[in-house]
């Protein structure tokens, strides 16, 4: 599959300088190889170190069990799912899968379609809980920006929803400005966040 590519920027964590990057509409074989041969070994090494230091399991990276090859392969079969990746200095820095067949839950938007972020993960060296300073900052914002932009392009007015892993709750609430609809017993008790069209406008104006 040939991906559409947009020029974007990430922020180098050590110097705060902007670094040219790519946003790719699609998750290809190269991105999956980066996940398998670079992300996974790094993540496993960090978890082993945490284990040796006695860090409780609840503080380990919560996306440890995610299999991007399986997820991307399934998503590619369906028109209602889309994958995105960001690449910087030759390496995949973030991956995201979204669905286009979910409806909004906020009362005044209820029943209207939204882009649902199924999975979003920054490369482990970009996660401040695993590396300080992270190699690049802004991966999460960049991918959420892509999801909201897709929502606008699909005429969903920017409506975007997701279930957040506990380590990311603050990011979606404070950085993305999404509404917190509370814990969802039907989805492993994860917190559900939603962005209204008005919140989407504010978020998009901030830029990526």
């Amino acid at each position: 599959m040939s991906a559409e590519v947009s020029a974007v920027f990430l922020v180098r964590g050590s110097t705060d300088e902007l670094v040219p990057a790519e946003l790719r509409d699609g998750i290809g074989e190269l991105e999956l190889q980066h996940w398998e041969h670079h992300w996974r070994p790094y993540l496993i090494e960090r978890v082993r170190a945490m284990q040796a230091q006695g860090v409780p399991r609840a503080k380990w990276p919560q996306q440890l069990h995610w299999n991007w090859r399986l997820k991307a392969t399934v998503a590619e079969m369906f028109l209602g799912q889309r994958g995105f990746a960001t690449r910087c200095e030759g390496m995949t820095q973030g991956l995201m899968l979204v669905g286009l067949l979910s409806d909004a839950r906020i009362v005044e938007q209820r029943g209207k379609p939204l882009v649902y972020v199924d999975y979003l993960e920054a490369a482990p060296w970009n996660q401040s809980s695993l590396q300080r300073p992270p190699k690049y900052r802004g991966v999460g914002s960049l991918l959420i920006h892509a999801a909201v932009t897709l929502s606008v392009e699909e005429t969903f007015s920017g409506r975007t929803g997701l279930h957040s892993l506990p380590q990311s709750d603050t990011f979606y609430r404070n950085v993305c400005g999404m509404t917190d609809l509370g814990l969802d017993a039907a989805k492993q008790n994860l917190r559900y966040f939603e962005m209204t069209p008005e919140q989407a406008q504010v978020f998009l104006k901030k830029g990526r």
Partner: protein
Amino acid sequence: MPEPTKRTMTLNLSDEEMRVLDSLAERKDLTKTAVLRQALRLYQMVSVRGERGEKLVFENEETKEKAELMLL
């Protein structure tokens, strides 16, 4: 993001089908094209998963009563 290539087709609908399309577009706050695109995405997903032997079940939020959609 760059726009993917799109193709145009003419669609003939009955008055009743057009009324349903208009109504869905209004209720869902979508263009009619977007409603049909959503319908295609949903139909594809239901078909593929049905072919895999999976069932589509509707559950009433209050009564928890379940009804299976029969795919023919």
